[in-house]
Each structure stands twice: as structure tokens, then as C-alpha cells.
């Protein structure tokens, strides 16, 4: 059971269908194993339904119903079920489709043997999604964050000054967080991380120099 959860703002945005791909998948992964957040997200879906219900009706084109019935007659009535192949049973369903292989066989890369990474395909220009693997007992050099970094522990566990995090925990670090995460001794720790645009320089020259801001 997870001890650290996404905040209500994220759960509301998730239920509204308005999160970017990377954070959407991350919240979906957490929710798969967290009954409490699943229930909260369902409340927000209900709120969405009520918000829709509270809108004033907008008149339909005169032939809308006729056209819809035409389409119904032409449409294939059977539902096509797409089975998502399970690549690695330890991982939540929302991620399976996006991984080429089991965790151990992913094309990990990195500067050091202690910290390896794997890039996930659903990053966009603002959000970068990665897996990090910290070798058992090893630590990341102390760092702060530019912008936000969202982390979901997938396998193993790590600790920093603020606490100890296990599989299913959802952690948000912002630019005030300064920490030295260390993987627990018993096994490698694999995390799913999503970062905002990593660098945000302000001012005229800053913008000119910053390749991330269009």
C-alpha cells in the first residue's frame, strides 16, 4: 500500500482528462494499486458529470438525430477488443504498451553503472518521462530541481532526508527540494520520473539562449 499519493489537484485534472501524457500515465499507474486515490478520482469524475449536467443545453442541428441513426445503421456493431500484451507483470497496466521489454532487458544507458536511465516514448516538449535505476545501496549526488519532478517508485525502495519510499509511492519534488536519494541495500530501485521543462531562464537574454522555450 502506498504512503505517498498524488495531490487532489492532480487527481482532479486526471478525472477531467486534462493531464499531459506523461503525468496522466503516472497517475493511472498509481491509481491502479491505490484504492483511496481511485475513489477520489471517481468522485472527481462524478463532479465532471455534474458539471456537464449543469451546462445549458445547446441546440442540435435539425438533422443531427437522423444523421446519428444513419451512422448507427452503417456502423459495425461489434466492439473490437484490443488485448494489451503484458511485457512485465510487475508493472502497472498503463505502462505495458510503452515498454519493449522486461525491466532488466530495457536498453538502459547512463554515465555511471550506479545510475542508469531509460527514456519513455510519451515525453513531449514540456514533460520528460524516464525510468531511473539506482543500484542497491547507491545514492544520487545531492541535487535540487528546476521546476517539478514527479516520481513513482516501481520496484525496490529509496530514502532521502524526508522519508522512505516504496513501490507505488508517488512523490513530488519542487525547486525547494534538495535531496540525496539512496536506494535501499536489498535491491536496485527503479523509479518512473516525470520532469517539467528542465530549464527555464527568464528575461530577454535568457529566452534567447534557452532552447527549450519556443
Amino acid at each position, binding site marked *: 500500500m502506498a504512503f505517498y499519493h498524488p495531490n487532489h489537484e492532480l487527481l482532479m485534472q486526471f478525472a477531467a482528462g*486534462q493531464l499531459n501524457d506523461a503525468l496522466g500515465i503516472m497517475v493511472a499507474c498509481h491509481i491502479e494499486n491505490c484504492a483511496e486515490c481511485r475513489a477520489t478520482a471517481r468522485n472527481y469524475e462524478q463532479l465532471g*458529470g455534474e458539471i*456537464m449536467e449543469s451546462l445549458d443545453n445547446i441546440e442540435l442541428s435539425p438533422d443531427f438525430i437522423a444523421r446519428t441513426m444513419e451512422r448507427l445503421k452503417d456502423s459495425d456493431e461489434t466492439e473490437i477488443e484490443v488485448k494489451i500484451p503484458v511485457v512485465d507483470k510487475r508493472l502497472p497496466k498503463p505502462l505495458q504498451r510503452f515498454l519493449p521489454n522486461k525491466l532488466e532487458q530495457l536498453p538502459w544507458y547512463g554515465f555511471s553503472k550506479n545510475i542508469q536511465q531509460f527514456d519513455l516514448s510519451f515525453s513531449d516538449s514540456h514533460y520528460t518521462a524516464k525510468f531511473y535505476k539506482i543500484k542497491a545501496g547507491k545514492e544520487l549526488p545531492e541535487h535540487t530541481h528546476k521546476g517539478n519532478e514527479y516520481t513513482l517508485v516501481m520496484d525496490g525502495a529509496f530514502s532521502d532526508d524526508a522519508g522512505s519510499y516504496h513501490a507505488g509511492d508517488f512523490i513530488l519534488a519542487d525547486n525547494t527540494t534538495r535531496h540525496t536519494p539512496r536506494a535501499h541495500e536489498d535491491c536496485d530501485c527503479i523509479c518512473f520520473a516525470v520532469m517539467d521543462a528542465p530549464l527555464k531562464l527568464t528575461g530577454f537574454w535568457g529566452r534567447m539562449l534557452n532552447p527549450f522555450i519556443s
Partner: protein
Amino acid sequence: MDPKQGPIVKESKLSQTASETSYQMDDLILRIAKTQDQQAFMELAELASPRLKAYAIRCGADIDDAEELVQECLLTVWRKAHQFNPKTARSTTWLYTIIRNKRIDIARKNKLDTVQSDDLWPEGETEDLEDDVERDLTGELVRTLLQSLPDEQRQIVFKVYFEGKSHSEIAAELDLPLGTIKSRLRLAMKKLDTLAKEQVTWLFIILIMNF
């Protein structure tokens, strides 16, 4: 088309009508599931489409795209009617999740390698058991919450649902400090959370009275 136009209905009346519509839609969806009843489908389309269209337009679709989205949503209702369970979800909520998902998928039609709604809400998840009492209470409570929110909080909640704006974008648009947006949204969410907890208390009272 001014959304503000239309007869003024007292809130209590409005709430009752919404409940009735919801039950009517429940029946129609169940009829579609049971007997592929095209008449029921047509009635549901007539009943639900103007609201679904309003949702699409609020999310930024133009008139044609809005009707296309509503049609896609209705055809999905036809195919998935058997998955609707009035014991676990109100028809309003169910329709909302379907049009929300369609909106996501249509926006990404040509990019199957990107995230689809099925990735975010995988099907065949077993719903937690809920009974009818709880379902109706929650519906009633969420509606009460929505009506009792001050305009300034409601405005921000609507922006989250329809425009997908980040808090800082909302702040810039309304020309308010980011902290104000965050605290207004937090207040709104706290209200919902309190109501959800009260609902548990009510359930408890009802159970005690029944046994």
C-alpha cells in the same frame, strides 16, 4: 447562442429534474444493452446530446467538431451499453467519462503511439462495490456542492475541467495571483472532500436506522 439565456429554474427544481433525467437515461442505456433497442438509442440521443454538445463546445470545439464528438460518443454508448452498471455509476457520470475519453482519442487520432484513453482508464477494472444508497447520496451531494460553491471557485473548477489550463495560466487569464487560484481551488476541493466524509456518516446513520 448565449448559454445564459433560457428559463430561470429554481435550484431545488433543477436538481430534481437532473435526477429524473439521470434515471430516465439509466433505463434507456439498460434497454440498449439488453435488446439493442434502436428506439431507446434515439431517445437517449435526443435527451443527452444537447448537454454533450455543450460540453464539447466548452472544451473548445467548433459546432461541426462538437457534433462529430457527440456522435462518436453516442456510438460508443451503443457498443458499450453492456458495461454500464447503474449500481456503480450514474448515467451522467458514465456519459461524461465516455465523452471525455472520446475527446482525448479524437485529438490524437493519427498518433497511435501516443497515450490513448484506454491506457489511462484500462477497461475491465473491477469496480469497488457500492450500493444504490451510496450512489444516490454521492450524486446528490456532488450536485449540492457544485451549487453551493461561490462563483469565483466554480469558475476555476470549470476551467480545470474544460480548458485544461494550468493554475498559472488560469492566474494570468484572470489577472489574479497564483496563490489566490491555488487557495480557491483548494477550498473547492476541501468542500468536496468534507461532503464525501459526511456522506459516509449519513450512510452509517441510514444503516443504523434500517437494522
